[in-house]
């Protein structure tokens, strides 16, 4: 193997090793240690100056009791389940909203497509945090939405949207919509229009042709979009803490509280490790889908 190739492959691996695997091992180590009133707030510390003896005593002190603790309090598994539910539901809503948009973009006149694409990407020019704050202004009791609805006479009392799960769904769908639209658009845009004409020519109605040709051919985009929304949504922290209420239970919030309110780093780390394991399953499925697509395309 020549040097150039070695460097080309080596750099991303080194990147992953330094910025993913090493931090992961550190978090895993903390998850296996015990809480302590110290700085950093856990025991044991790895004392390399004590030599071999130090390393042995370090490993001897590690145990799984933080993971065991997660099973004793139903807060944790409820938070995991609730996060899963919110992530699944918002992924489905994002798909239902995003697919027609991507479809419309792909069928729009060629000269309009760059503009439409630009409009999808445009929100990223504003900080994510500011956009979520803006939603607080829109959804609150005296917010723009309620004022508008009262003005039109549709309602007489302001609706309570902010600090409910509904606001969390709105926030997640809004934030992650571009991640759904872009891969689906990419898949639809590649599609040859004559395929739909062929389907019609062979006896399909327009609707039937959509289900038999368009949907299967955009499957890779749908799957990619769903994972791109689902994976960040499940660990989402900012949106539920700003838009959600006290009843909104999401694992990201639990994690934050363990780390910063309770200063229980070992339990927080254990929560993070479990979350990662939950996420790794869909990530592997996603990778597999990509692989299959590549093989089919090649």
């Amino acid at each position, binding site marked *: 193997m020549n040097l150039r190739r070695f460097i080309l492959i080596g750099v991303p691996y080194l990147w992953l090793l330094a910025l993913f695997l090493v931090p992961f091992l550190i978090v895993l180590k903390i998850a296996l240690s015990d809480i302590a009133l110290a700085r950093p707030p856990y025991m044991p510390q790895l004392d390399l100056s004590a030599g071999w003896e130090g390393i042995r005593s370090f490993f001897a002190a590690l145990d799984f009791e933080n993971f065991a603790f997660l099973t004793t309090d139903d807060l944790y598994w409820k938070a995991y389940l609730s996060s899963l539910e919110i992530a699944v539901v918002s992924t489905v809503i994002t798909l239902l909203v995003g697919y027609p948009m991507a479809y419309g973009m792909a069928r729009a006149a060629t000269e309009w497509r760059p503009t439409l694409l630009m409009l999808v990407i445009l929100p990223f020019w504003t900080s994510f945090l500011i956009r979520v704050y803006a939603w607080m202004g829109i959804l609150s009791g005296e917010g723009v939405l309620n004022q508008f609805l009262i003005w039109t006479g549709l309602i007489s009392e302001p609706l309570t949207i902010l600090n409910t799960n509904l606001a969390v769904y709105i926030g997640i769908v809004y934030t992650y919509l571009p991640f759904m639209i872009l891969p689906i658009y990419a898949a639809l845009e590649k599609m*040859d229009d*004559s*395929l739909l*004409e*062929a*389907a*019609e*020519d*062979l*006896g*399909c*109605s327009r609707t*039937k042709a959509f289900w*038999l*040709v368009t949907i*299967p*051919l955009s*499957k890779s985009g749908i799957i990619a979009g769903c994972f791109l929304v689902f994976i960040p949504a499940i660990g989402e922290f900012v949106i539920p803490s700003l838009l959600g209420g006290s009843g909104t239970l999401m694992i990201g919030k639990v994690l934050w509280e363990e780390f910063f309110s309770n200063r229980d780093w070992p339990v927080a780390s254990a929560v993070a490790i479990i979350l990662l394991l939950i996420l790794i399953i869909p990530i592997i499925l996603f990778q597999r889908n990509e692989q299959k697509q590549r093989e*089919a*395309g090649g």
Partner: protein
Amino acid sequence: MSQKVFAPWDDPNEKPLIQFKGVTKRFGDFTAIDDLSLDIYAQEFFALLGPSGCGKTTMMRMLAGFENPTSGTILLSGQDIAPVPPNKRAVNMMFQSYALFPHLSVWDNIAFGLRRGNGSKQEISERVEEMLRLTRLEKFAKRKPHQISGGQRQRVALARSLAKAPKLLLLDEPLGALDAKLRQDTQFELMDIQEKTGTTFVIVTHDQEEAMTVASRVAVMDEGRLIQVATPSVIYEAPESVYVADFIGDVNIIEGSASQSGDKVEISWAEGEMPIRGTTAKTFAPGQPCHFAIRPEKVTITTERPDSANVLQGKVIDIAYLGNLSTYHVKLPNGTMMKAQTANTRRLANRGITWEDDVWLSFTDTAGVLLER
């Protein structure tokens, strides 16, 4: 004569399968088809031939149902097809890009149209197998379109469009994506399949050789109009206009003025040259401008002055060697270039004529065609 010649267009009792009646199609300001009338008969292999943008594809798309005429009617078996959507027409189309469904296997692609009908599973499967045999694709039934070659894809597209046994099959540049050798084989295969199935084929092509090879009749189109509709041999030997003569094959065109006596015409075309003697069934007024068209293979090239109705002297400027044929570009004293073609029945080393040679061109008085326009 025991065998009847297939020529329903000459039989006044024959009912055409397709009739275009004063069809016009406009896209905005652009007139793609201009007041066009045409009859196509059952079991014909009909070719629409013309340069790109001449409206041939628009005609095909109107037959398939993807476009409707702006005015005029199209009848299929005597019925106006304008209100019938594409999925309800007994017409199938083979697309230029083949438009095979990439997510379906060859088998499922062929079965796609059949599944939209109400045939039983058994019937569908039998029909698909039949189509696979017809197009010699049995071995590839389980493959996906991207796993087979271009020629095989072309056959899948053909099998898929034939599976529903349409009254009319439309082929849009069906061989455009194939290389020259494969295209020739496939042309004969197409004719064979057309004959076996008895389906009426309408083929769109810009390749005149392809149209000549496969078609029973050829329609030469330009700018939304039909220029001439006739059998390949009539189109080639008796074109009605310079456009057709020039579009189909190679041709020498000489402009001049006619003086007619009976069916013989003398065309004076250049100072100091003998008039060209030709034969025509048309009538030309004395001095009427006309075009004399003669195919290069009908012009004989010799080193000695031959005895013929028309003899011209010139110098060889260029030789295009095509293997089986050679085309000589000969410059006449007044600067006119003439092409003469000979079959290379001898090997190259024995050939008598080369560059810069003084040669004689000759042709009989029936070899060329006189054209008014």
